[in-house]
């Protein structure tokens, strides 16, 4: 495991302050009783490629091997992205592997993407404005996560609760995705 993955390396706030500015109007959008759209808290993000059990040991978390499922433990979330690929989310500075994992790839994607939270009974309908997946709870249950598309942008969609979704989007697409969600929000 490269020794560059230290908490200091994962929090270059002083060196690159622009990375901590959200690329869209981050004021929460509130439609009382129906929708709340707001930025996710600041997160550390790692993309893991390799063996599930070895990587799980290194990050003290059992990685999901069932397709399109997320697990949460020890304050960390692991989202299945592909058969040997996961997105790890946690508080900034906390994602440091405990042992090295030969043959695995661990990439810091902390500032490549931003998180958006959609809450409320209208959340599935608002997402459906740009996402072609069936978001009914029987087709997209709580705990399901996947890469997909929203309009013309790629996103990672994770259903944390029946009426709560976490959306990860590359930061250069964030203003577009946020704007489309705003336009789709109920009046």
């Amino acid at each position, binding site marked *: 495991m490269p020794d560059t993955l230290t908490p200091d390396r994962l929090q270059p706030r002083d060196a690159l302050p622009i990375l901590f500015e959200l690329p869209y109007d981050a004021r929460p959008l509130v439609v009382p009783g129906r929708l709340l759209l707001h930025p996710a808290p600041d997160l550390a993000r790692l993309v893991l490629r390799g063996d599930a059990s070895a990587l799980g040991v290194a990050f003290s978390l059992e990685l999901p091997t069932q*397709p399109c499922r997320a697990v949460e433990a020890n304050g960390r979330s692991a989202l299945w992205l*592909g058969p040997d*690929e996961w997105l790890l989310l946690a508080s900034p500075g906390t994602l440091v592997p405990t042992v090295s994992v030969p043959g695995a790839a661990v990439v810091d994607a902390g500032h490549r993407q931003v998180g958006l939270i959609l809450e409320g009974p209208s959340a599935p309908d608002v997402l459906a404005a740009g996402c072609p997946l*069936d978001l009914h709870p*029987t087709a997209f249950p709580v705990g399901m996560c*996947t*890469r*997909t*598309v929203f309009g013309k942008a*790629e996103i990672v969609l994770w259903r944390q609760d029946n009426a709560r979704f976490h959306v990860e989007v590359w930061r250069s697409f964030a203003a577009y995705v946020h704007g489309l969600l705003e336009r789709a929000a109920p009046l």
Partner: protein
Amino acid sequence: MLLIPCPICGIRPEAEFTYAGEAHIARPAEPASLDDHAWGEFLYARTNPKGDHAERWRHTHGCGRFFNAVRNTHTDRFITSYLAGTARPHGTPSAASPDAPAMRNDTEQWGQA
């Protein structure tokens, strides 16, 4: 929108996929030993059937993986899909049959998405 069965993720919308040409075309082991005609055949000659066609797809905006599928080019129905690197399943109709059987990519076969 066309629904495509990813062998890993289940049935997913067409917008998440990228088409990648005919499947099961092996690159010659010794390209230098081929004459121009044989090399041209490898590069460009495709079966182009009106009927069932084994082809590669990539679930680009999903699991990201390449896989193979048999699709009827006449009806645009997917007959089956299977992991990259595995052989075309026995029992899938050959390219000679004009019409595809009924679509079998229901949730019972593929599981929930």
